[in-house]
């Protein structure tokens, strides 16, 4: 029994890494642009399908395929932001962008369904099936690589935000859009690129998700609920928070699954509701402005 629990914890941490990869993009987009991108779930699935195409048609290694899917998703993200989100302004902007991204999610899901149908797929590679066996625990290679990837991506984003000029513009926009504009920051460009980066990261997340789960176009719903719970728990806009919350939530779910698999997902929803009520900014989030 104890061994089961420990294995569940280990599983939770490893899977948490995968989810962190998916959540980081979402929290970045919210932190900078005040946009809750509901389409993130389906974009992860899209990333998985892209990796699937590359691996089955061109026989590319999954990680190598990222060199193509990441820029592709970046472009998709920029297009979405530019075409639909840029125009939304005004007081109800955050609510409106939520609805707009929901609509985009529906469209992408529908198109994927038309192309691929309801049958599930999974990404395959030599390292997907095998694990390393340490101290009686099974650590699948894919998860280890994935965790490393997640850390690498997070480090890269931190470097982008804190070590580059562009990153400075992003942080300025995050704090005060008007002030940033006044000092010459091209806010529109920052918005488009940040959204693009947020979506590009989901390419990596999508590949990892596809390698560790079977997926079909419907998988997006479940995913986005979990991702929302994670980023809200970790604090909207906090990247470190996304990592911490991912690991935490997935570990809890993993433990709850030992007793009751069907109710395990409730952990996410319940956590989401509880946190939002008690501490709406999550554990690491920014302080809200008082007026609506």
């Amino acid at each position: 029994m104890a061994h089961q629990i420990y294995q569940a914890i280990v599983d939770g941490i490893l899977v948490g890494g995968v989810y962190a990869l998916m959540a980081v993009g979402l929290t970045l987009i919210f932190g900078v642009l005040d946009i809750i991108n509901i389409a993130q779930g389906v974009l992860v699935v899209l990333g998985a399908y892209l990796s699937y195409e590359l691996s089955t048609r061109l026989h590319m290694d999954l990680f190598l395929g990222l060199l193509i899917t990441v820029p592709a998703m970046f472009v998709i993200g920029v297009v979405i932001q530019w075409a639909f989100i840029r125009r939304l302004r005004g007081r109800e902007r955050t609510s409106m962008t939520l609805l707009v991204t929901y609509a985009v999610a529906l469209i992408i899901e529908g198109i994927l369904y038309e192309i691929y149908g309801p049958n599930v797929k999974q990404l395959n590679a030599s390292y997907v099936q095998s694990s390393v066996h340490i101290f009686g625990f099974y650590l699948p290679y894919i998860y280890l690589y994935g965790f490393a990837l997640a850390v690498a991506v997070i480090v890269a984003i931190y470097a982008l935000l804190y070590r580059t000029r562009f990153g400075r513009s992003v942080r300025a926009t995050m704090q005060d859009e008007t002030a940033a504009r006044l000092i010459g920051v091209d806010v529109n460009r920052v918005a488009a690129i940040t959204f693009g980066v947020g979506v590009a990261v989901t390419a990596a997340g999508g590949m990892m998700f596809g390698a560790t789960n079977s997926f079909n176009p419907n998988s997006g719903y479940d995913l986005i609920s979990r991702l929302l719970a994670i980023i809200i728990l970790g604090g909207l806009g906090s990247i470190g928070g996304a990592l911490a919350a991912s690991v935490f939530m997935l570990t809890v779910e993993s433990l709850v699954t030992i007793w009751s698999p069907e109710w395990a997902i409730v952990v996410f929803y319940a956590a989401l509701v509880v946190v939002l009520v008690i501490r709406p900014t999550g554990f690491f989030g920014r302080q809200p402005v008082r007026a609506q």
Partner: protein
Amino acid sequence: MTALLRTEGVGKAYGGVHALDSCTVEVEEGSVAGLIGPNGSGKTTLFNVITGYAKADAGHIYLGDRKITNAAPDRVFGFGIGRTFQLTRIFASLTVLENMLVASPNGRAAARRRAMEQLEFVGIAGHHAEPAGTLSYGQRKLLELAYVLVADPAIVLLDEPAGGVNLSLVNTIADRIRELNAAGKTFLIVEHNMEFVMGLCDRVTVLDSGTVVAAGPPAIIRTDRRVLNAYLGEDLPDNDPHPGEQS
């Protein structure tokens, strides 16, 4: 005469910035009090703390004998404190008359009558059926004044009532305030327009960096060295992007 509104040693910090520090301001009943100070001196923050839009970190607020520190905005309103905002906040999709009715406590017909009276008092009764969003800036200022008055508060806090409007309207607003004051209403007015303040107020308090540096009749304040120092000469127009932020 007793002080109707009194803030005692109020402090408020935003992060490391002390917007208010040991701020003690008194407003006597039946007077028109002015609150002036350079940009960033904490005037709007003080209003926010008094009316419950911001929490005081230290000190207390008294309305008469009652302690109202950190009461929520709707309770503060119920106690009889009305307030306008630096950037006019009106209900844009409601008609002018409907804006008035949001604040009124009475029943149907009585409320409408009283609302129309107030609208006529400020001079925009002709627009009562139009969406408030279509009003010009000056008209919105008048509307805000009107609906704050409709609930007959004991004291009215005006945040830059003369800001950004033309001269004749400024005089109109000043006249209305005088009329209401003559009928017994107390006012506390934040303003940058010196002529407006000096011509209207019985007593002026000067804030600088969150504390009171001087208080007294306008004539004295005008020549007080500390006040002149605080302002450093020229008085620049305001540029705050959000209501509720410190001014």
